[in-house]
């Protein structure tokens, strides 16, 4: 029993680490641009496909594959955002965040169907050497999964350094905090918004590639995960980057622990309940009371 729980916790940590990357992206975009971008699911899939092509056609090593995923998903994210969503953002009313969110669902559907048109509905697996699972005590861990965990954590640390040390990172936090004040200090919000979209979608892309290495990629890879990604982001407060990581990791573990009582098909249920409970306990997200966080 105890080893079961331990095994579930380890599995949950690994799932959570993969979810953490797109959850970070979603949170970053929400805090800088102020709307919920549902199309992150499609960008996650884009990253997975880009990685799959880089791996199977070009036979690139893992790091190059992930860079490919990052750049493709990020670039596609910015381009589609400029074409589809930016014109809707321009008209600013209290309804605008919701309108852009709905448009982003449509964008997600458009992209997903574009993938289906080109790649078909089949599952595509990466061409990676399969390593034997490691055993620590009674707990089994896949080497690739352990690798994924390291990469996810490394990226989160890198991102934290970027936001606390670099000028651009600080400027981005300033925009997230208060657009008007940031503008007053001579920060150009639109360029930063594009950068935030690029980084956010790129992170989702890497998450997608890592996930697809572990399993496979098909047009709906991202959409199947969207509830879990949102859960990670919402539980973490939707505007807090460390919160997104903590939220995603805990969502991963709660979801796996839920398997003790729930049939596996209902794993999304834990994500939904977590979203609901978080929002009901604090309608503005966990960190809504904190100063300097945009509501």
């Amino acid at each position, binding site marked *: 029993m105890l080893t079961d729980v331990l095994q579930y916790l380890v599995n949950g940590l690994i799932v959570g680490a993969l979810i953490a990357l797109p959850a970070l992206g979603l949170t970053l975009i929400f805090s*800088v*641009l*102020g*709307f*919920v971008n549902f199309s992150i699911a499609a960008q996650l899939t884009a990253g997975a496909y880009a990685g799959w092509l880089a791996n199977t056609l070009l036979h690139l090593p893992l790091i190059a594959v992930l860079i490919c995923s990052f750049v493709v998903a990020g670039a596609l994210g910015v381009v589609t955002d400029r074409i*589809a969503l*930016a*014109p*809707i*953002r*321009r*008209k*600013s*009313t*209290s*309804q*605008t*965040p*919701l*309108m*852009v*969110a*709905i*448009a982003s*669902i*449509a*964008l*997600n*559907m*458009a992209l*997903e*169907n*574009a993938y*289906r*048109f080109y790649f*078909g*509905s089949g599952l595509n697996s990466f061409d990676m050497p399969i390593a034997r699972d490691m055993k620590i005590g009674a707990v089994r861990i896949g080497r690739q999964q352990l690798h994924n965990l390291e990469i996810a954590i490394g990226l989160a640390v890198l991102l934290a350094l970027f936001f606390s040390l670099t000028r651009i990172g600080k400027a981005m936090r300033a*925009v997230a905090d208060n*657009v008007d004040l940031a*503008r007053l200090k001579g920060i150009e*919000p*639109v360029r930063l*918004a594009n950068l935030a979209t690029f980084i956010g979608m790129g992170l989702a892309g890497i998450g997608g590639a890592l996930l697809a290495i572990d399993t496979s990629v098909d047009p709906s890879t991202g959409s199947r995960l969207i*509830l879990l990604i*949102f859960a990670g982001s*919402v539980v973490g407060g939707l505007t807090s980057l460390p919160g997104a990581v903590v939220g995603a990791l805990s969502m991963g573990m709660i979801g796996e622990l839920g398997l003790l009582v729930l*049939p596996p*098909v*209902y794993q*999304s*249920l834990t*994500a*939904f309940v977590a*979203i*609901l409970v978080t*929002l*009901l306990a604090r*309608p*503005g997200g966990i960190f809504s009371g904190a100063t300097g966080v945009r*509501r």
Partner: protein
Amino acid sequence: MISYLVFAGTIAGFYALLSLGLVMTWGQGGMVNLGLVGFVGLGAYASALLSAAGAPIWLDWSAAAVLSGAVGVALCFVVRNLRGDYLAIVTLGFAEILRLAETNEKWLTNGSDGISGIVAPLKGYFGDWFALFYLLLTWTLVAVAAFFLNWLLRSPFGRALRAVRDDEQVAAVAGKSVLRLKLQAFGLGAALSGLAGALYAHLTSFIAPDVFIVQLTIYIFLAVAAGGYTRLAGAVVGSIALVALLEVTRFVAAVIPGLDAVQVASLREFAIAVSLIVVMQLRPDGAFGLTNERSGFRGSRPIQDLGQRQKAVLDDAS
């Protein structure tokens, strides 16, 4: 050809019922319901199961509407304090959970195989004329729903509801029960979705979880956005336009050589999604424009409260 048109017309009526429901909740009530398709599924399954148990058709359909409405009221009560985009996430998740239940509760719903052989009402009596009868029946329901909602929205209830949509605090200060109005609007929308689901189930005589996916919600948002999302007439016209677009893309996709079935389907979905984005960019107020419901003069949407509230979305204007 005639039977094809009759079928398309019936589907348009199905979309129109859903659009009317969405206008009620979203356009007039100010609450986004991205879980629309969940309520459709609820109604469809309720009606199909009851009908299989031998209940008469009027009972099946009423039960579908009542069940969906009740679940809608309950959901709305739980999420009563959530703001727009959070409501979007929760309702979207809710529909997904319902779909999971439909897929996995095999003892009740027969899982992903779905339920087939759902009895159509009076099919033996009408024989060959059944399709036409069903078309008329559908559009009669649409007309009844539209007239009822129109009456409702012109009444003091409608004005109070719009007041809640535009500013909850002001409405509350004016003595309106904000929560009750919200519950009523959301419940009515959900009940209409459930009724539409029942209608659909008995039309096609087959339902499965795959029918009730988020794409259908996007279809209805397109219909409502195209027609002007506070307008009942816009919802009906938008639904007809939606079916026209769906059928046109079907023919266009069939003309292009060398496409397989998956590609044709994805092309259609792609067209729908892009249309919604284009409509929202070019005509955010819909084809019918908006009338200022408070004064009767044509004017801008009363929600615009620039300067009162912090600008929510980073825009490109400056």
